[in-house]
């Protein structure tokens, strides 16, 4: 919109927006800063903002003294694994929904969505028992499975909205050109939908990384991802702010970076295409 804007107005808006942005971001920033303090400085009153002795000690301690790297690795395996598995199942499904629409296409999509709305707590007990009896409690395999199922509807939906934007004529052209279904998906659909597939992967890795119901209830120790590991800091002994901050920073940093890349697609993915 070609609005006439005075510099003074723009400066005011800028000041205000930056201040509010800074306040909202402050807890994250404070966590990052605290992670470089000593435990003493972390609780010092008055707290020092930037002028303290910067130290990497907390990161070293967290990495050495606990099983932090293992939990980090669990998070990576569980979030990436469940997302890849989900996309693998969802691509053919989304192809069907987007390019061979039928009378029931809409119902299928809505039904998939409805599975996402079932509150997890409604099936907590049976899932716990199934996991216990199948020996899946506290295993990465089990968590990958559950998170795949949880995010599958979102993955199908996101891919569906991206596939919908590809003109059906192009796939028909491929078919006329003698492409088999495999070639059609491999050489035409996938490369064309690559940006969409990438943002689907990104958003679902983020969602899986931060999932904190099933991971907390189904994995207590060796398969616990960072969500569960960090939760164990809730009943600490002694000085721990700096170490908590270091562990937290490492837990949120990768996702913060991925998230900033995916913010444009975020809206669409999280609203199931209702807001673009």
């Amino acid at each position: 919109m070609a609005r006439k804007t005075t510099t003074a107005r723009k400066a005011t808006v800028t000041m205000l927006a930056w201040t509010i942005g800074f306040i909202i971001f402050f807890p994250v920033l404070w966590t990052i800063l605290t992670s470089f303090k000593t435990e003493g400085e972390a609780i010092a009153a008055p707290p020092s903002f930037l002028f303290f002795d910067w130290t990497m000690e907390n990161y070293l301690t967290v990495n050495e003294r606990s099983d932090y790297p293992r939990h980090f690795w669990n998070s990576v395996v569980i979030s990436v694994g469940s997302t890849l598995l989900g996309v693998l199942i969802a691509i053919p499904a989304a192809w069907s929904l987007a390019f061979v629409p039928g009378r029931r296409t809409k119902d299928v999509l809505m039904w998939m969505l409805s599975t996402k709305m079932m509150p997890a707590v409604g099936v907590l007990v049976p899932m716990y028992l199934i996991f216990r009896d199948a020996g899946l409690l506290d295993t990465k395999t089990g968590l990958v499975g559950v998170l795949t199922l949880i995010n599958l509807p979102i993955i199908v939906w996101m891919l569906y909205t991206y596939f919908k934007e590809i003109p059906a004529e192009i796939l028909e052209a491929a078919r006329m050109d003698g492409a088999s279904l495999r070639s059609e998906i491999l050489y035409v659909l996938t490369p064309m939908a690559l940006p969409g597939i990438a943002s689907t992967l990104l958003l679902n890795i983020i969602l899986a990384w931060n999932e904190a119901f099933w991971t907390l209830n189904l994995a207590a120790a060796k398969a616990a991802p960072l969500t569960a590991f960090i939760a164990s800091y809730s009943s600490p002994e002694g000085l721990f702010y700096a170490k908590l901050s270091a562990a937290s920073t490492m837990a949120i940093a990768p996702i913060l970076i991925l998230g900033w890349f995916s913010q444009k697609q975020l809206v669409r993915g999280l609203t199931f295409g209702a807001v673009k």
Partner: protein
Amino acid sequence: MATQHSRTVARLMISPAVILLLLWMIVPLAMTLYFSFLRYNLLMPGMEEWAGFSNYRYFLTDPAFFTALRNTLVLVAGVLLITVIGGILLALLLDQPMWGQGIVRILVIAPFFVMPTVSALVWTNMFMNPVNGLFAHAAKALGLQPYDFLAQSPLLSITLIVAWQWLPFATLILLTALQSLDSEQMEAAAMDGAGPLSRFIYVTMPHLTRSVTVVILIQTIFLLSVFAEILVTTNGGPGTASTTLTYLVYVQSMLQFDVGGGAAGGIVAVILANIVAIFLMRMIGKNLQA
């Protein structure tokens, strides 16, 4: 694009997803339903017996249930109120011309990417702690008595933490909606003599209504399941002061090992969530041209 052949292939290609979700939806839910009619405690294996509706009667008449129901409503409503109003204001602000808009966007969106356990722990310890928290330091610096957030108003504290996590979501969606507002519509309204306030009331707000509804419905679905934030901060306490429905079911089934009671609570939660879900599905379904 609709030959018999391609239809057959399509059915084949969609079946793994459909079958998996069907199993995921039916099997555990059916088990929950079944358990909800049993007297079944994990500490007394082999003692299961038919209990009729007694689990439901027990769960629904438990005073903790009413507290939990009230707490759930307060939490959901509180977070919605803060995020929707804050989100509209922030979106309007961020939609104005300014320097460094991209960076402000990044700052505002950040909390959404912080995992729930981290944000709960950071807020509880580093901000709300009555001894070492930043708020306590600030209060002391002003000569005031530090406030023990989690002990004195646990539900409000949790509401604030959750609202901080969800404000970016509301802002981002409303900002996207604002930016899709046809600028010619605004200019036409301006030509028709509408001032900034009338333009907001008669053009911007109607345009945002749909997105606000979507934000409310989607957040409600997620907020009904808030769990980690409570587990990490208050454990539902003191007493049941910050126990929500989700947390109550968790306590009953995972801490008291009362599978039957927990299952009954789970079914109640499913029914409540479905009421919200029906509205959300209508909204999304209307928008879907399949």
